[in-house]
């Protein structure tokens, strides 16, 4: 039963994700997020941080993994609250709209 419950959740998530992709909402949300992040200067802040990291590591030796490891947590933290709130709002709206799967 536990397995099924977990499965149920997983299934639900899967179904929701599927719905998101099918209706194109995921793309829209992604674009919206990107635009908002650029607007609020998140990208520039992160870029400045990148520059420091790269200068530390040396231009030649930078790898994707390095960057991802350094930057992703900072990026997550730097997202302003307003952007986060708006995005969550939109997701909740979507979920409410597509109540019956």
């Amino acid at each position: 039963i536990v397995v099924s419950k977990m499965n149920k959740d997983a299934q639900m998530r899967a179904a929701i994700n599927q719905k998101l992709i099918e209706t194109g909402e995921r793309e829209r949300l992604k674009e919206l997020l990107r635009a908002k992040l650029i607007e609020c200067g998140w990208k520039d802040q992160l870029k400045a941080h990148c520059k420091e990291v790269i200068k530390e590591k040396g231009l030649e030796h930078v790898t994707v993994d390095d960057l991802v490891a350094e930057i992703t947590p900072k990026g997550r933290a730097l997202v302003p609250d307003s952007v986060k709130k708006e995005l969550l709002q939109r997701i909740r709206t979507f979920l409410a709209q597509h109540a019956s799967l």
Partner: protein
Amino acid sequence: MPELSSGQRVGRESGRFLRCCGLTTTPPSPCVQPCCRPLCYEQSERRLHKSLQMKMEEMSLSGLDNSKLEAIAQEIYADLVEDSCLGFCFEVHRAVKCGYFFLDDTDPDSMKDFEIVDQPGLDIFGQVFNQWKSKECVCPNCSRSIAASRFAPHLEKCLGMGRNSSRIANRRIANSNNMNKSESDQEDNDDINDNDWSYGSEKKAKKRKSDKLWYLPFQNPNSPRRSKSLKHKNGELSNSDPFKYNNSTGISYETLGPEELRSLLTTQCGVISEHTKKMCTRSLRCPQHTDEQRRTVRIYFLGPSAVLPEVESSLDNDSFDMTDSQALISRLQWDGSSDLSPSDSGSSKTSENQGWGLGTNSSESRKTKKKKSHLSLVGTASGLGSNKKKKPKPPAPPTPSIYDDIN
């Protein structure tokens, strides 16, 4: 036999109990046929799974806890942010490897130079708005100081190189051929046409500095804008007096000098209409007005001794108090030189020449005197003509002066 996703079959034949682990995320299609009864475990499992699935399908999300919903929303959000971060990382990495990552860095000095300015009254480059409105430039040609916004048109006229300048020049040439050939005033007209003067005033430029002020606000008679309205005017009267014409068939007598008045009255009806206050441009025998009216008008304009031109044959005795020859000369000169209509240009030329010839024959001194007075008259007439609205009384005062000059 229906196949389960695991690929194992359950059939009636087999006596063995096969474990059908078909319980994957996509549940296998239910077994239609009842399978081996003893093996209930799998079936029950399947059935349970099916029921759960159906339940889930029926279930609405709102039925779930809000916390679950919120958790899902947070997850989705986290996914999106992660996507963005990853995307950013890839961009940066590519830029680093391709070598254009540090391209937008400049040295701090130039960064300071081009910093965005945020002061009131200035734009972001630090420039003052409206700086050139009140500036005055010195014209290299005539060395006058001109307002910046008027500088270009001024230069066009001053250098004589614009469209309008050539128009004016051509017209001037054409008209100078029609009018006095002995006109020796050959000043450079470029300067005169500077401030958009009326056409007729170019001969006596120096005297009429004050007239510039009057004429400036009005339309340039030589500009292309004018030419359209001119085409519809009376053919009788000349095109070279555009400043006297309104868009109507009458003439504003206020703007006419004595010269033009006289010429008008000899060719046209000239009766002033009550409503429009303009002179009638129809023929001398126009049916709208009586002879009495015409006479009145002429008396009003030309003095008490003036009469209708058609009535009398010679004006000299009545109009002017002077000797016969002098009167004749002056009369011919007025007639000839006051010609402003292209239709009469041919005939007037000859009469003009005769007039001058006669003048020469009789007395040299008088000729020059007449010439000067004539010129001054034409000058003043045209000059007054150019004062369209500001001076309503030009005809009256100069008329006595004509008499004075001649006498």
